[in-house]
């Protein structure tokens, strides 16, 4: 009983339970949903958001935000796929795409961490510039006719119906999760978001950690862009538009607090699966997928409101307990010279 209680306190486990319960309920209403093909597709289709959410989770855990990842995804997708189309080697194409993510991440990290500019505003600016760069780079045209060897990659499946992309990404997320929770430097990310003043006192390089978070976020957005290209097969200049908001929503669904220091990468990836399964679930429940945004919005608001209320209550309670502890017992007699 006690262990059960402890386990439910881990936020990503709550999200996992939620995911399982969700799938189970949908499966009861419509057993076809539980067919391996369908179930696996829920995961396969979440691969891009899993990458984006995991990437932005690094940034959110340190207490910042990045709204430029949708544009970064688009830019990397455009760069890598146009190079592939023009016959460049895979290595060059992928390296160029990843480089774009590194550069955007470095710029964001510099602005937010070194210059101390509020992260939402700074990344809003880079978002505009990066989105514009896609138009400059592609001349506003679609990138099409990607090599078949590249697009087919997204169809390679293992264990029946699980794409190799999702499998690799999942393993990567697990590895990153372990690195983040079990290595000294990994813990820095959460420490910085949890209590920046305390982190500096025990000698953690807060500024450098934030820059690193942005770079990782940028790189993962680039990887997402490359996988996006392979899955979709063509790149429009608006590719990834609005994805940043969905990635943030996935993080919140996965139990990550936007105030930083709370949550995990696994949580983010679970949130991404929930997020991208909503429309499929609706179809299996016999609803129109037009309910997609409404359901996502309700889920998101409900979760954060409950979360905020519990946290506020706990904070008030502990403050009151502390104050009550200071109050001494009644005195036997009143001292001093009464008037």
């Amino acid at each position, binding site marked *: 009983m006690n262990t059960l209680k402890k386990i439910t306190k881990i936020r990503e486990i709550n999200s996992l339970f939620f995911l399982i319960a969700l799938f189970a309920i949908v499966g009861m209403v419509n057993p076809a949903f539980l067919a391996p093909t369908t179930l696996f597709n829920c995961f396969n289709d979440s691969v891009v958001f899993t990458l984006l959410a995991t990437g932005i989770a690094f940034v959110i855990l340190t207490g910042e*935000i990045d*709204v430029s990842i949708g544009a970064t995804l688009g830019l990397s997708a455009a760069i890598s796929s146009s190079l592939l189309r023009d016959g460049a080697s895979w290595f060059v194409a992928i390296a160029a795409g990843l480089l774009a993510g590194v550069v955007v991440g470095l710029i964001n990290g510099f*602005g937010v961490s*070194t*210059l*101390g*500019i*509020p992260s*939402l*505003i*700074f990344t*809003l*600016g*880079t*978002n*505009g*510039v*990066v*989105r*514009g*760069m896609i*138009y*400059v780079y592609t001349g*506003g045209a679609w990138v099409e006719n990607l090599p078949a060897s590249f697009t087919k990659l997204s169809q390679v499946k293992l264990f029946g119906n699980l794409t190799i992309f999702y499998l690799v990404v999942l393993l990567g997320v697990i590895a990153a999760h372990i690195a983040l929770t079990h290595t000294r430097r990994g813990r820095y990310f959460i420490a910085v978001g949890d209590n920046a003043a305390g982190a*500096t006192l025990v000698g953690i*390089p807060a*500024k450098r950690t934030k820059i690193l978070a942005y770079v990782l976020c940028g790189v993962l957005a680039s990887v997402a862009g490359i996988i996006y290209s392979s899955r979709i097969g063509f790149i429009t*200049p608006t590719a990834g538009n*609005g994805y940043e*908001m969905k990635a*943030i*929503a996935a993080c*919140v669904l996965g139990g990550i607090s*936007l*105030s930083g220091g709370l949550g995990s990468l696994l949580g983010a990836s679970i949130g991404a699966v929930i997020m991208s399964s909503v429309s499929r679930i609706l179809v299996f429940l016999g609803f*129109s997928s*037009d*309910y*997609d*945004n*409404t*359901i*996502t*919005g*309700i889920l*998101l*608001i409900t979760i*954060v*409101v409950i*979360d*905020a*209320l519990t946290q*506020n209550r706990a904070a008030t309670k502990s403050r009151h307990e502390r104050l009550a502890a200071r109050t001494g017992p009644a005195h036997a007699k009143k001292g001093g010279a009464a008037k």
Partner: protein
Amino acid sequence: MKHSPLERFKKGVKSWETVLLGLLLAEFVIFGIANPKFLMPRVLLGSVNDIISICIISLFVTFVMITGGIDIQAGSIVGLSSIVIGVTWQDFGLNIWVAAILAMVVAALCGALSGFFVAYCGVQPMVVTLGGSFLYTGIALLVSNISATASYKGISGFPEDFTQIAKFKLFGVIPSQLLIFAALTVIAYFLLHKSKFGRKVFLVGVNPRAAEYSGINSRFVTLLTYVLSGVSASIAGIVLTAYLGTAKSDIGVTFTLPIITAVVLGGTLSTGGKGSVIGTALAALVIGVLRFGLPLSFKVSNQYLDIPVGLLLLIVVVGRSIAANPTLLRKLGIGKAKRQKNKA
């Protein structure tokens, strides 16, 4: 104790609003020289429709940001308002004006709901309005499904006197949108800078705890700012619907980032407590003229326009951050050797 008019003028020259005004004038001069057609009233004023929604909404999102919040749901409320008008008019047979008022009420409720979660439950404004943007976009789509008309087509055929909102031109040149914007700017200005409510908005943004200790109901004031921004989004929705002649659920989804850009560029502190309606209005115009002038005068493709707007925002915030903390430059110059010093 007040300063003489001359002193106040001198002080005014240094203010951020003046910089924006200068920027706006510079745009006119540069674009006008590059392409004299730019300055033709008909051309210039005809461009207003592209930016009017952003101008209107950013005026009131300024209130939200002064309290230290943020509103990224306003864009979704534009679409919701538009489709509410269309559906209640066409499918429920409401009078078009009643429909428009209903849309404003719905928008106010949307704002109040998000504002309640922010102010009374202590949820971060960013997350609440992110959820709100999904929710209200979703509801707009569902409302459009009620209609007999397919949602991608949009509802059209509005009565003449409604579309006249956006077609009317004062003296034959000044479009009504500009008049609405001017009127709303005046209203917002008086509300924020001249009323007791506006003063409370500022005080709550500067120090919510001190505001509470002064007997101000910080939470309610915060909630009201979200209602205001919701209502302004519905006004934008009405104007846009009248101009397009079509009610659609997804107009406005791309407005979020430009709105925030206008407010920040207008000098509003993202941490709250400082900002001005005039600044936001000027910034919205600077962005609008830039987006209109670059293609017209310099043949810059429309699609590239995110770059100059984004750059403008980055230059402003970086410049301000360096101006506010001059040691930053020195620190950057010396580099990492002095890292230790930051800790003290």
